[in-house]
């Protein structure tokens, strides 16, 4: 039995109360329409609801509402977070409906979707919310029957006397919990006794998604709402001066057009944005706005250098060669220079990767209704709290007067960590004095910045005469931030090690992109290690396992980020499951393992050549993310990460000319498609009782390295530049 104190977040454990107004915490009909599936029709609709705490509301008919606190971007937290609450509450999952909680910093912590942190950071709070409610309902029953709580048990929302006949449902007893004291201490379940966690539950929004119900920000509508679009300058380094305002305003269906400025004092990192001054157009229909956008004739002035992809490449090359830019010696163990000198074999390779766009399938959009002293924001954001803060600064309005509600998001991938489009909606609504929904076109979305940065990194390794790794160095330059994790593998396994991070400047704005930097470092480092293993004449998995042995028995340095046993564990698991030693004619294999977002993933890619083109047949994945809350959904996440990783490494890039992106839609920007996806992905989870860690991101990075290594096995080409499809030479394929 685990006893925990309930002070984890006292504020979210207010006294049980009869919920006002039929029990809708939000009191907002469009979003409460976003309750999950049709259970409400199957169980009688409650006459009264009781707010047990910030996460749970129980109806007198036994229907239970669980609020999912975090934004849903496709990582499926709207199912998995409530599952954790329901586990400890001990209710029948069939009686649970899920609602999106609004932003409420008083109730919840960590209401954001980023860093694969949702479950990891809220694991305890969610368990406690369920356990506290369970305890209070039991106390209410104990009081009613004049027995002690110890004499009661609960199964699936029914409280029963251990030595008697009496039973009562949560729905019936909930009213007795009104006004009760919150217990000082509650009991959490033993992990081995979990009944719901660890079983696969379907996406609570599945039915709504497949029937096309309004769920996304772009689907939101409100009486009297106008639509708005923005036009940003065509190139980074340009600024809007003026435009043919009168002409645009006179166009059919256009009600207003003006220049907006969303610059705020002391911007935070979430305020990153390509263009702060833009043209805004307001109107009645999307199509008329799109036509008006095309009719804009603006004067743009050049305020800083207009960059091109050639310049970007040269900048990164120079940064690596001469150390221009800001250099930081991020870690140094031993004496790498001396070790390289005495090494019997030295190998050095440079890897590059271009800028990339996020390309969430749902383009940026937001609803805002700003009045003189209130602002209501509804839409897709991974960061509701920073959005609220920035809107408060922009409108000069106290935070208490601002509300933020989250819609389901058509993808996030880091793009919606940046809040500028919410600010744009707010300032447009303020100007027009009406509710407004701002919509980006795909072109707006793809050409306005916050991209995945461009990278170049040089890796160098030295082997002694017995083919032991004695020196390793990595130097990573990025536009703008160098891709370096100094304390990750192979740090800790090599006596002489150095990691240097070089930041360089660009006016192209960048931001976090699914598994920031890791998606690059994993690809580079894991292909490099493949080459080092080959040079050492060792099997790539055995070579890595040797290094992990070193990190287990006699680690170098103290700051190593990873647990070597768990890292080696996933490699061993994937080795076993994929029958690594066995060779199938025509099938070429590559392996990679990576640790990020506190999760360990190893992957083997099986690739064949079809008419000379690489085709991934199967990807084997071994994952250690601690306890797996919802296994089938977890598999879905890993599958998505693998396909995303392979797709972007293979096909995607954003290039620049005169400061403007050359790719602005999916005709030129290539995303992986059905026929290019692996034919099969099999995922194996390490079973343990460690608290759950990230899943949305860690499946992606190793896919890049494993793919590069499989392509080498198949074609003899070591691809060091992304996108691989561009640099793969078909005439040189030897497979």
């Amino acid at each position, binding site marked *: 039995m685990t006893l925990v104190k309930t002070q984890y977040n006292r504020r979210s454990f207010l006294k049980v109360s009869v919920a006002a107004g039929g029990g809708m915490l939000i009191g907002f009909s469009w979003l409460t329409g976003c309750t999950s599936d049709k259970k409400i029709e199957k169980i009688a609709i409650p006459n009264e609801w009781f707010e047990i705490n910030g996460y749970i509301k129980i109806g007198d008919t036994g229907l239970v509402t669980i609020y999912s606190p975090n934004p849903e*971007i*496709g990582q499926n937290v709207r199912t998995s977070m409530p599952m954790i609450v329901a586990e400890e509450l001990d209710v029948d999952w069939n009686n649970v409906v899920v609602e999106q909680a609004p932003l409420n910093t008083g109730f919840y912590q960590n209401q954001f979707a980023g860093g694969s942190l949702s479950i990891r950071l809220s694991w305890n709070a969610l368990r406690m919310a369920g356990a506290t409610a369970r305890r209070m309902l039991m106390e209410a029953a104990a009081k009613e029957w004049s027995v002690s709580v110890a004499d009661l048990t609960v199964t699936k929302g029914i409280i029963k006397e251990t030595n008697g006949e009496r039973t009562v449902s949560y729905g019936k007893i909930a009213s007795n919990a009104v006004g009760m004291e919150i217990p000082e201490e509650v009991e959490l379940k033993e992990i081995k006794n979990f009944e719901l966690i660890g079983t*696969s539950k*379907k*996406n609570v*929004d*599945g*039915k709504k*998604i*497949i*029937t*096309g*119900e*309004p*769920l*996304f920000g*772009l*689907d939101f*509508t409100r009486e009297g709402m106008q*639509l708005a679009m923005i036009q940003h300058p065509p190139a980074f380094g340009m600024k809007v001066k003026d435009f043919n305002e009168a002409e645009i305003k006179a166009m*059919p*269906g256009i009600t207003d057009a003006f220049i907006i400025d969303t610059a705020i004092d002391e911007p935070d990192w979430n305020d990153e944005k390509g263009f702060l001054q833009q043209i805004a157009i307001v109107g009645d*229909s*999307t*199509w*008329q706005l799109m036509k008006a956008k095309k009719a804009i004739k603006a004067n743009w002035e050049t305020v800083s250098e207009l960059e091109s992809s050639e310049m970007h490449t040269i900048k990164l090359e120079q940064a690596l060669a001469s150390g221009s830019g800001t250099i930081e010696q991020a870690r140094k163990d031993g004496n790498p220079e001396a070790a390289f000198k005495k090494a019997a074999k030295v190998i050095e390779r440079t890897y590059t990767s271009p800028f990339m766009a996020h*390309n*969430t*399938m*749902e*383009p940026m959009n937001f609803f805002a209704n700003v009045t003189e002293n209130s602002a209501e924001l509804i839409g897709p954001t991974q960061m509701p709290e920073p959005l609220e803060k920035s809107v408060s600064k922009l409108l000069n309005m106290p935070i208490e007067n601002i509300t933020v509600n989250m819609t*389901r998001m*058509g*993808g*996030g*991938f880091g793009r919606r960590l940046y809040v500028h489009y919410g600010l744009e909606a707010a300032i447009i609504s303020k100007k027009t004095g009406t509710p407004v929904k701002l919509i980006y*076109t*795909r072109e707006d979305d793809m050409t306005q910045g916050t991209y995945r940065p461009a990278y170049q990194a040089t890796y160098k390794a030295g082997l002694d005469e017995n083919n032991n790794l004695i020196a390793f160095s990595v130097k990573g330059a990025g536009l703008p931030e160098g891709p370096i994790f100094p304390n990750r593998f192979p740090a800790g396994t090599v006596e002489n090690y150095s990691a240097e991070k070089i930041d360089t400047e660009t006016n192209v704005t960048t931001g976090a992109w699914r598994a920031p930097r890791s998606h690059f470092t994993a690809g580079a480092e894991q292909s490099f290690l493949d080459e080092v293993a080959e040079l050492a004449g060792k099997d790539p998995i055995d070579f890595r396992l040797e290094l992990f042995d070193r990190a287990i028995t006699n680690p170098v340095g103290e700051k190593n980020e990873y647990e070597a046993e768990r890292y080696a564990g996933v490699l061993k698991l994937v080795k076993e499951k994929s029958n690594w030693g066995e060779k199938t004619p025509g099938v070429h294999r590559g392996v990679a393992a990576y640790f990020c977002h506190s999760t360990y993933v190893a992957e083997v890619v099986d690739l064949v050549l079809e008419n000379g083109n690489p085709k991934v047949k199967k990807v084997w994945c071994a994952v250690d993310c601690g306890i797996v809350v919802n296994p089938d*959904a977890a598999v*879905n996440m890993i*599958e*998505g*990460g*693998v*396909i*995303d990783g392979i*797709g972007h490494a293979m096909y995607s890039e954003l290039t620049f000319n005169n400061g403007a992106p050359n790719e602005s*839609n*999916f*005709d030129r920007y290539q*995303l*992986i*498609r*059905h*026929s290019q*996806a*692996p*034919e*099969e*992905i099999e995922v194996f989870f390490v079973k343990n009782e460690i608290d759950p860690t990230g899943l949305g991101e860690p499946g992606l990075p190793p896919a890049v390295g494993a793919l590069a290594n499989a392509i080498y096995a198949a074609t003899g080409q070591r691809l060091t530049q992304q996108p691989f499809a561009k640099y793969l030479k078909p005439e040189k394929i030897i497979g």
Partner: protein
Amino acid sequence: MPKYSLKINGEKRSVEVDSDTPLLWVLRDEIGLVGTKYGCGIGQCGSCTVHVDGSATRSCLLQVSQAEGVNITTIEGLSKDGDHPVQKAWLEHDVPQCGYCQAGQIMTAAALLKSNPNPSDKEIDATMSGNICRCGTYLRIKQAVKTASKL
């Protein structure tokens, strides 16, 4: 503005819009059927797929003036209660991640199975490759199409 009379999900709807308005925006802005999604507006992503007389059609490329006199089916009208075999298979395989592309995927798959009830892997690939899923649910989509073909 000119008036158009459309037949959507078996119902007559009349709208007053510019003649070059794509069906996609007629559905979303005028009629309030927002299950059909906008992803690119240039026929590249498949998010906006509807059925026109039973064939999968990109509604972002079909102007309202060309949409009269045909039967238009959107995701909302594919079945009464989400029980079209493709929808059932989608639930069985728990396909969606973010879910945004899925209406378009389902409409493309439903039209495929109507014209080709037992498609091969290659045929599924060829037809479904016009529908992008940024979340990478392609494997589940393929499995679901195969399951649906047996329902």
